């Protein structure tokens, strides 16, 4: 039960952080950090796939409600949730993932978490920004936004893990 409550709290905190702080950071129109994806990254390994999708959907939808972009974040989050099991398989550690443990930076090391977060955040941001412009015109601009925002989000996510693990 403990991790359920923990996740709910994390869910709420991340939404508040995203809506109140990170949504207001728009450096030169290219950098929009979306740190809330941390919630999906940190869901337990054992989360049933369907629940993963549903939770991702509601996470995205909550952000959408606040930023008035109904469906966009939701679709990107669902895409990210869909990819998560495959990414986990792809970068699996030698042993199987242990159950009931949240995959944090401190469990499998920095490089593992970095790879894991990089792939998923990149996927999420690509999906999100492409859906946002809804066309492939000026794809260079879109690509730049994806890369810059991914770097920024990734930095925030990794930094947050350092802060938490030091606690």
């Amino acid at each position, binding site marked *: 039960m403990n991790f359920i409550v923990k996740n709910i709290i994390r869910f709420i905190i991340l939404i508040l952080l995203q809506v109140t702080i990170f949504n207001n950071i728009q450096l030169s129109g290219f950098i929009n950090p979306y740190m809330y994806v941390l919630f999906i990254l940190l869901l337990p390994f054992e989360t049933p*796939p*369907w629940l993963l*999708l*549903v939770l991702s*959907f509601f996470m*995205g939808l909550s952000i*959408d409600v606040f930023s008035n*972009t*109904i*469906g*966009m974040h*939701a*679709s990107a989050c*669902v*895409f990210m*949730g*869909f990819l998560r*099991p495959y990414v986990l398989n792809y970068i699996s550690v030698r042993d199987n993932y242990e159950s009931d443990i949240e995959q944090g930076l401190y469990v499998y090391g920095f490089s593992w978490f970095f790879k894991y977060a990089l792939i998923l955040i990149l996927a999420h941001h690509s999906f999100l920004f492409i*859906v946002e412009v*809804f*066309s492939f015109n000026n794809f260079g601009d879109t690509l730049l936004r994806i890369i810059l925002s991914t770097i920024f989000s990734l930095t925030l996510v990794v930094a947050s893990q350092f802060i938490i693990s030091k606690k």
Partner: protein
Amino acid sequence: MKNLLQLIVRFHFTILFLIIELVCFLLIVNNNNYHKTIFLNSNNALSGGIYNKVTSFSDYIRLTEINDQLSKENTQLHNLLSENYKLTADSFFFFEDSLFKQQYVYRSAKVINNSINKQRNYITLNKGRKHGIKPEMGVIANNGVVGIVKSVSDNYSTVLSLLNSRLKISAKIKKNNHHGSLYWDGKDYRRAKLIEIPSHVNINVGDTITTSSFSSVFPEGILIGTADKILPSSGGNFREIIVLLSNDFNQLAYVDVIGDLLKNERLELEKEVEK
């Protein structure tokens, strides 16, 4: 069914993902004006493209029909060409030749009134005295004899149709030149009677009947019709021949009026003999 369920269970993750994404996109399109416009526009482009393809395909299918129409139209336009029309203004000319003297002049005229269902049928033409038409001139159509001009006004003339029991014209059997006289008995508008043919004359069904040279109205050899039935006359030396007229009087449209330039000369000569 079982297999289907198994399939769904096996791929429930992907299926659920697709369903949720679909829901997301519905939300996006329905709630964001920008996306809505783009979606509708691309939708229109897509459907427009498909409609274009469909139209070009159905156009191809309809080519036969269109060809038909075009050829019909072509024919119609062809018929409108001026070359197809007889000049209604008279454009004949006299040809001076010391060897051949022109005897007959043809004037084309249009039938503006006609009947076939009476005992005495008359035809009205749109040419009259002004155009050189005089009474007693012969009238023929492409297929043969039509009648004789009876009276003329300045612009119109009436023609005693062959389908008039008062008209009798001199006719002959083309192959052996036996003469008789032809009249209409008022029964069938396609058939007339040729009488005064001697019974010894050899005639078969289908023989051609033409005008004879006895007539001062028609040139010799103008088609009248073909022998349709040969009746033995009752107790006489003559036979009656039912002639199928070559002209369909019900369809007369344009006729030629024949003027005989030497008619007066001939009549005067013949009168002198009678005196």
